[in-house]
């Protein structure tokens, strides 16, 4: 498989739960979550951790507050410069 061609502005930096993460342009927030220490998007009713499951906007496991908007699905959201992501985990 061919490697993607180099991009102009090739990376963006966002904050996930206060932590800065720098990712290539085109990375989804759900994929960027795996670059933090945990791959946890929320806690269930008993406090056990959950992570993304379907990757396609179906299961709602990866919902988070993104730039102040609650219940946004990380798997359908591209990372943007200065974006703020807060999970409830």
């Amino acid at each position, binding site marked *: 498989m061919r490697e993607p061609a180099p991009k102009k502005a090739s990376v963006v930096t966002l904050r996930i739960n206060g932590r800065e993460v720098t990712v290539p342009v085109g990375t989804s927030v759900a*994929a960027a979550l795996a670059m933090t220490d945990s*791959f946890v998007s929320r806690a269930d009713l008993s406090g056990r951790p959950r992570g993304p499951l379907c*990757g396609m906007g179906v299961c709602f496991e990866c919902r988070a507050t993104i730039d102040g908007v609650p219940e946004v699905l990380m798997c359908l959201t591209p990372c943007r410069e200065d974006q703020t992501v807060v999970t409830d985990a």
Partner: protein
Amino acid sequence: MREVCDLVVVGAGPGGLAAACRAAEAGLDVLVLDAQPEPGGQVWRGEARQGSNRLARRWLTRFSASGARFRPGARVIAAPEPGVLLVEEGPSSFAVRYGRAVLATGARERFLPFPGWTLPGVLGVSGLQVLVKDGLPIRGKRVVLAGTGPLLLAAAATIHSHGGEVLYIAEQASAASHWGFALQLWRQPAKLLQGALMSAKLVSVPTSTDAWVTAAEGERRLEAVRLSVRGREEHLHCDYLGAAYGLVPNLEVARLLSCETSAGAVVVDDRLETRVPKVHAVGELLGIGGVDQALVTGELAGLVAAEQPVPLELERSWHRVRTFAAQLARHDAPRAELLRLATPDTLLCRCEDVPMSALEGCQNLREARLYARLGMGACQGRTCGTAAQTLFGWTGEDVRPPCLPARIGSLRIPSDVSSTPTRES
């Protein structure tokens, strides 16, 4: 806010793109809605950014030149009257008034519960594949894949090409069924080639038929999996598990529009029109058939919507792809052992934390909803409803608006869109 169009296409995967191209090229004003940020659907995810798939490149280029309008990040939440859809887009919403509709909402993975399936690091097979395409760092990570059919190899190929270490591919189908299916593929030259290319890259990966995951283990995230491989148990330490058993059509929007369904697929006539006039369905909604079926039926529906003649080759192609779809359905049908993996403590509904034990005595989906809150959470039963249907034979209830969690303001029909007078609140 409102949109008016001759044709609305719901879903920008191959089926939706083909329909939109054909209709827009014939002069219709076409509006395409998709929940994703880019066109391409799940199968061509990321191709709009970094195309390596020539077929995807060709259709995406044709789509951007077609004149069809594209609204990314747009989710259909209600259909308050014929010819009107209510759509949520990020923090705002709008109404669409359309003359005809093509539903191309594609498919999702079939998840079946097993102990540990709620641990972070356990994803779908294609779920893990799309996250890798979207930039999840997989280089040097150990991955186990468990599922069925061509998707398993497609996911393995993507993970392998991004530097992931695929430790094991567990195919649930029996050897006889699997190789019988593979032998049929020679009738489908494009698919045979795809299969051969995938296998060539993956020759070193241990693969077995009659194999499936029995449990995922770990404290705060996945650490290891247990597999049943031809009757013996394997225990593998790994970072990610992709586990899902084939695909099921996303029927919610079709049901919202009152389209008739039968045996898990939308009922259409030979013009791909559903039982609801001026509403067509294409691709996976007709029964899982992959990219070829999506393109053929998308083109057909686009031509019909634009009242154009349908070339005979397209009609013939449709019959050919139907044969493949039927073979795929037989191959991918989950085996009985997979339906008995969950223990009483295993959660079936992940949104409302409903364990299997809570469903004792429930006879159908309605009782499970009322007494145990199955399917009452954020995903509205999209995950557990499919599992419950596979496990217990419970079929889905009618879809009621909103068919996705939505803000209350999004459900109001703008007065300039409705054809019937509405009272202002």
